[in-house]
């Protein structure tokens, strides 16, 4: 997974957080995923799915879980997936909305430019 790789490459120079948010394709939706995941209805069940997700995808990126009202996801307009870079308390990079505009390479290029120059 490319994001995991990006984390392994830049994880010492920048913090990485994965925020687990509302399922994009749960059972009963118009296009359910073959993974057959139900949309969690409580924060605890959302936490469980988040753990399953990180284990199955072999993610070591520190994971956060959005509350059941999707407070963080709404604030960032993050559905279904998206990336941001925060620098000095401000948004320094805003990635496009996934899946079409979710671009790891673009994020990585932006991140590299923000890292302190190597001497």
């Amino acid at each position: 997974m490319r994001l995991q790789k990006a984390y392994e490459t830049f994880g010492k120079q920048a913090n990485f957080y994965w925020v687990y948010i509302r399922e994009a394709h749960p059972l009963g939706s118009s296009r359910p995923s073959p993974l057959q995941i139900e949309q969690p209805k409580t924060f605890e069940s959302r936490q469980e799915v988040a753990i399953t997700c990180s284990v199955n995808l072999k993610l070591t990126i520190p994971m956060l879980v959005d509350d059941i009202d999707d407070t963080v996801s709404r604030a960032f307009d993050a559905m279904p997936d998206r990336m941001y870079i925060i620098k000095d308390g401000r948004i320094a990079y805003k990635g496009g909305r996934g899946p079409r505009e979710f671009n790891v390479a673009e994020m990585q290029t932006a991140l590299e430019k923000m890292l302190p120059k190597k001497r």
Partner: protein
Amino acid sequence: MKSIALAVVFVSAGFLQAQPQPNRGGGFGRQMDANGDGKITREEFPGPKEMFDQFDKDKNNSLSPEERDAMRQNRTRGGSGRGNSGGSFRRPGQGQGNNMAQELFGAVDANKDSKLSPKEWQSYFDKILTEADKDKNGNLSAEEWQAWRQRRQGRSSGRPDRGLKVGVMAPDVSAEFMTQKGSLDFSKIKHLTVVIFGSYT
């Protein structure tokens, strides 16, 4: 555009698949060479005029074995991978290439005469430039180009993008860590931080 694409299907079905091995002087295009003189004249070429013109580099109205090779290679490149790069054509319904090509044609062809002129290309590019050239240096960097494309795609995808703009303060919201106790307040992030949002599905 359609006639070019259809003709390419014909060329590909008739010759490329029957003669997959590159073979200078024979192989690709041999069947087009009706009189067997090793050259394909304009009359012998079954494809569209535009395609002939594109590969008849020395403009002698016949395709030499080298020019045929170039055509074959171009076809092979266009047959795999995504996008419509390398100046190749795509079959109708194959990926999005044809749709994109048609869309682009429509967008550039300002007077709708089904022809593209250098002037139309220039004014189309000028239009992009006014929207995309953020640093106003008169040309487009790869980043500017990509950002412009993304803005356009975002516009066409229906739901308005309410994402946080570059430069604004990180919002005053927080989320709990998955396994350890505690939470992260996004407005208090000081260190350079990449935030990835996603779900399992």
